[in-house]
């Protein structure tokens, strides 16, 4: 689309150029009067001689004479001057008439020119206006066309975009659906696996529980054979011994984890472990199970059914 403003500047410039040309030409045409001739003025200086005062009388006489002479001369001169002035006046009158005619002619010429110029200008302006109008119309038509085209283009674009958007959304939706589907499948799979794992773990645990239960009874039985309950023991006493075993079942170390408060009683508990020295059946236990439960274990020595 073309901006109308873009025509203002050229139009203005054209007008300016026309105006300028007109102005330049008009000085030639209008300002044709004669250039003024100024006459130079002379300054008449008066010389005064003090020494000449003595001669003043003579001078006065001479002056009077001179004056008379001058008056006479002046009279002649005035006469001459009057004649001259009349001549001059006639000449001037002639000249003035001549100039006037000339001016009239010139003015006439000028007016004609101006008229012609005006006509041309008007024609030009007319043409210009017409051209402008045409141009504007053309521009407008073009703009409209462009606009329409633009509109169409935009609409097409929009439609295209919308279609693309729809397609994209659809694709996205499908993708999401697929993804959700996949995730669900994965989750189900994971859950299934976790359950399977948990079940396997449960089974393994059950099995290890059974093994551990066995081992617990075994260790208990061995220690009950080994523990010499001291005479100072009383029902309710309780000492906890921590045992560190080696994978072979050998006792690595044993120490009181919680005292009964009676050092001698505690001592018999620790001794019961050291007396055993080794729990050979521990060596048959699965190494992982051993690490988890048997490497370090606690034995609670708590006599029951004593007399006191």
């Amino acid at each position, binding site marked *: 689309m073309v901006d109308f403003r873009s025509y203002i500047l050229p139009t203005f410039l054209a007008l300016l150029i026309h105006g300028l040309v007109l102005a330049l030409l008009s000085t030639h045409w209008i300002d044709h009067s004669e250039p003024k001739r100024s006459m130079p003025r002379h300054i008449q200086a008066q010389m005064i001689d003090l020494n000449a005062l003595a001669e003043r009388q003579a001078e006065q006489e001479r002056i009077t004479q001179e004056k008379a002479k001058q008056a006479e001369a002046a009279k002649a001169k005035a006469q001459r001057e009057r004649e001259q002035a009349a001549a001059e006046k006639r000449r001037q009158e002639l000249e003035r008439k001549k100039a006037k005619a000339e001016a009239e002619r010139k003015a006439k010429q000028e007016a004609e020119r101006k008229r012609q110029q005006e006509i041309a200008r008007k024609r030009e302006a007319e043409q210009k206006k017409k051209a402008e109008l045409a141009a504007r119309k053309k521009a407008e038509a073009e703009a409209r066309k462009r606009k329409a085209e633009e509109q169409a283009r935009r609409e097409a674009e929009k439609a295209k975009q919308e279609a693309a958007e729809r397609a994209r959304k659809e694709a996205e939706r499908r993708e999401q659906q697929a993804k959700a589907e996949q*995730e*669900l499948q994965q*989750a189900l799979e*994971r*859950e299934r696996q*976790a*359950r399977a*794992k*948990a079940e396997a*773990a*449960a089974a393994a*645990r059950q099995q*290890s529980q059974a093994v*551990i239960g066995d*081992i*617990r009874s075994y*260790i*208990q039985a061995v*220690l*009950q*054979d*080994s*523990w*010499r*309950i*001291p*005479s*100072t023991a009383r029902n309710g006493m309780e000492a906890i011994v921590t045992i560190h075993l080696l994978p072979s079942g050998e006792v690595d170390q044993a120490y009181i984890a919680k005292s009964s408060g*009676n*050092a*001698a*009683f505690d*001592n*018999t*508990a*620790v*001794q*019961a472990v*050291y*007396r055993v020295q080794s729990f050979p059946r521990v060596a048959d236990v699965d190494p992982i199970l051993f690490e*988890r*439960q*048997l490497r*370090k*274990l*606690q*034995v*609670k*020595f*708590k*006599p*029951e*059914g*004593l*007399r*006191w």
Partner: protein
Amino acid sequence: MVKLNQLLVLALAALMSMSVRAELVVEVTQGVESPTRIAVVPFANDSGLALSEDVADLVQQDLGRSGFFEPMARENMLGFPSRRADVYFRDWRISRMDYVVIGRVENNASGQLNITYELFDVLREESLMTEPLSVPQGGLRDAAHFIADRIFEELTGLKGAFSTQIVYVTAEQLSAGKQRFRLKLADWDGARAQTILESPEPILSPAWSMDGSKLAYVSFETSKPSIYVQHLATGKRERIQSFPGLNGAPAWSPDGNQLALVLSRDGNPEIYVLNLQTRELQRITRHYGIDTEPNWSPDGRSLIFTSDRGGQPQIYRLDLASRNLERLTFEGNYNASGRLTQDGRFLTMVHRSQGGGNGFDIAVQDLKTDRVDILTRSGLAESPSIAPNGSIVIYATQEGTRGVLSAVSLDGRVQFRMPANEGDVREPAWSPYLR
């Protein structure tokens, strides 16, 4: 929802793994109720002297008689080490010993004997205790009891009572109508007995003061019973009380300032408490039945005594401040001569079971549970007296027609006869811990 399920599974798995990782706990509630096995290796004699006593043998005897230990017979020992470097734990382990004691006797510059002993834990293969002693040549027996005390305390947590003493009374029929009574003082095992009083008239009921410096007893030397106090260090004795009728069964209060006793001056036997400083006499019981054999509780706040106020002899406890009376024994138709252990938990007594015939035995009652255990089967036991650490009860019994002293561990495991080579022995009293 899916997430929640996952979370649940995870949490469950975590819980499982936790339970899997928890330490195994084994509970042992039964064991072999057997004495501790200990080998007391004969001490090496590096002194160059012929020693009057076999120290190791005395230590072994002390430990064995407590009932807490089962010493190894010497003939079974694989070696007689006397220094640490010579102790082969493997050998002792094979011999199923838990502890080994070694020692040696040497001369020292001042003419005394140096005894060094060391106690080893066989199972842990470590030395538990070692100590050098310096004793005069005649002090080997004391040294042996001292060593036994130290080992006993180390291994049982109870203070050893092997350095304590006993007193007892012997009676001899010299000729028809002529008797000799002696009050004797001996080591706890009956050794080194010495007569501290001799009388043609009966001596009864010797009782130790709690500081072990004095004895109170009843003597008939003036033909009627009177209560005397005798200082062991000086032999000085004084008559404390003599009232018409029966004067008997003195018992020292734990603080040593009072004496509980039985007087029948008001008609029938009643319990009195005599303040030894002020000589003030206070009547404690007031009953038409017989009240006798008073004994102080370890805290001194109550008295136990025998009374037939219920129709047959039973043991009662009287709180001195509140005068609250409480019957302690209900089992059997005869319970008398009650004594309390120093922790106040166990009561020993002469007991006759319901339907048990005429047998009198030593029984112990757990005052916490009121469980009664009969410790002897002699049928003629009397006058039980408890070791200060509560481990052993000494009592008098009959062997044939002769009275002898016997002892039984409080758990009834070990019973042994005291060596007594003269006359009829009766009325033993075990001393408190002696300094």
